[in-house]
């Protein structure tokens, strides 16, 4: 029960969930959250690999921390852009925004 594969499966599950969400959700916030899911899947991977495989115990954790930090920044930027969009479109439904094509 406490083997590497469990974690990998979970993380893969998370990742696919996130990807699915990004592809399927029309709500920008929802998409943002799904992306966070994917990042966290990566984090889980790092931690798991770190715990089970590598001799040096730090690298994975550091990376995970970095990813978290960047994810936070990402969320902030994302939200600000979404906000700007909302001001113009009065909606955060991405289906409303498909002018550019071809």
């Amino acid at each position: 029960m406490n083997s590497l594969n469990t974690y990998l499966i979970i993380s893969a599950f998370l990742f696919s969930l996130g990807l699915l969400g990004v592809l399927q959700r029309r709500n920008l916030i929802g998409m943002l959250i799904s992306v966070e899911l994917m990042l966290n899947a990566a984090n889980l991977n790092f931690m798991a690999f770190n715990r089970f495989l590598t001799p040096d115990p730090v690298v994975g954790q550091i990376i995970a921390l970095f990813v978290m930090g960047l994810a936070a920044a990402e969320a902030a930027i994302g939200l600000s852009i979404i906000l700007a969009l909302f001001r113009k479109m009065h909606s955060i439904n991405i289906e409303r925004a498909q002018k550019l094509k071809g």
Partner: protein
Amino acid sequence: MNDFLLFLPEFSFIIAALVFFVFSLKKTSAPALFHGWALTLAGIGLVVTVAASHQEGMLFFDCYRVDLFSQIFKILLALGTVWVVFSSNELKGIDPRQHAEFYFLVFVCTLAMMMLVSAVELLTIYVSIELSSYSLYLLVSMRRNADQYVETGIKYFMIGVTASALMVFGISLLFGVTHTTYMAKLSETLPNVIRQPAAVIGLLLTLSGFFFKLALFPFHIWAPDVYQGAANQVTAYIATASKMAAAAMIIRFTGLSSAASPDLVKLLIGLSILSMSFGNLVAIIQKDIKRLLAYSSIAHAGYILIGILSMTGRGYASAIYYATAYLIMNYACFMVIMKIAGDGHNLQIKELAGLHKRSPLLALTLMLGLFGLAGIPPTAGFTGKFLVFAAALEKGYLFLVIIGMINATISLYYYLVVIKAAYLLKPVREYAAVPVDTWTRYLSIALIVLMIYLGIFPDQFVSLTEAAARTLF
């Protein structure tokens, strides 16, 4: 102290970024002043980078490698930044109150990319990519009073973060398979484990993050919208500087993992063919020049990849040469566009009508730039294509080269359409003559000379690139 010298170029841009951070704090808007400052700082940055061009060494626990290769690309990045900053003297596309932020973000992004071309460790790469991407997200969404392009920012953001999520997941798998994040070690261990699915998936997802930066099919989808939707200067920046970084990164990555399986080569061949064909075909039907150039940039990503995928010293050298030529020619086109669309609107092809009367010099620059992109001698673009194809044929990829040439012919069509507009079409309404200040005149002459000189006398530069490519192994 020596380490500090190694880091000097980046440091100069950190300074520049800080300066504009300070400017951005107080709410005064003085575009001319900012432009002056920005130009000076960027110029200093360029000088410093050139001065540091022959530095060599490792930094930050060997995460950060300074060698001829990285320095060449840093020079190119600085050059692109200087040019873009130079062309931002009338930054109509962006609210005057945000000019400080604009320059701030440009410098931060340049800094990030400079780190990117030197990074030889996955986490460093990841961080640098994210840093540059974030500033680009903001730059793109900065465009003012352009309601039809409002969706650009969010699209770029969403696609970008998804791509980076894929990449980081891939990195995690690579880490899991190879137990390391240093590319040097990675390249040693990867060939042994390349048969494991995890390794494959990891490698490909990581690459897809890079390809996203290079706008290679099928990770190109942000490019057309962003090129069209962003302010002209921002587009110019993305099209020139950020392309350089992406190319450098991919060259470095494949250069290290050159021992990878032939399947990888097959994949890259496929991608480059798709990229060239898709970009050129779709560009045919475009009306908006920036969007057209976006598609052409997708195609050119394919050409650069041809040089890379031959995975020989000559191949990487040709890719570097090609990237340089592309930077120059592409900037030449964008400079003309920014000049003509002084008020920062999006230029349609038909608006070029009668340009040869309104400003012969700009028309000539545009024509040479476009011919260069099309790969017509004696411009640098041709020599670049020639070198790239030569490298590919050295490995015997005849079919790939033929497809590349056919694509070049197709691309000539839409470039000719633009040139036709500039030289033949009678303007529907009388446009005013384009005001060309002295510096722009000098710059365009310099660009013309540069394009032709590099095309006719490539010898020194080619040997330089080859020296740079040698440092990769």
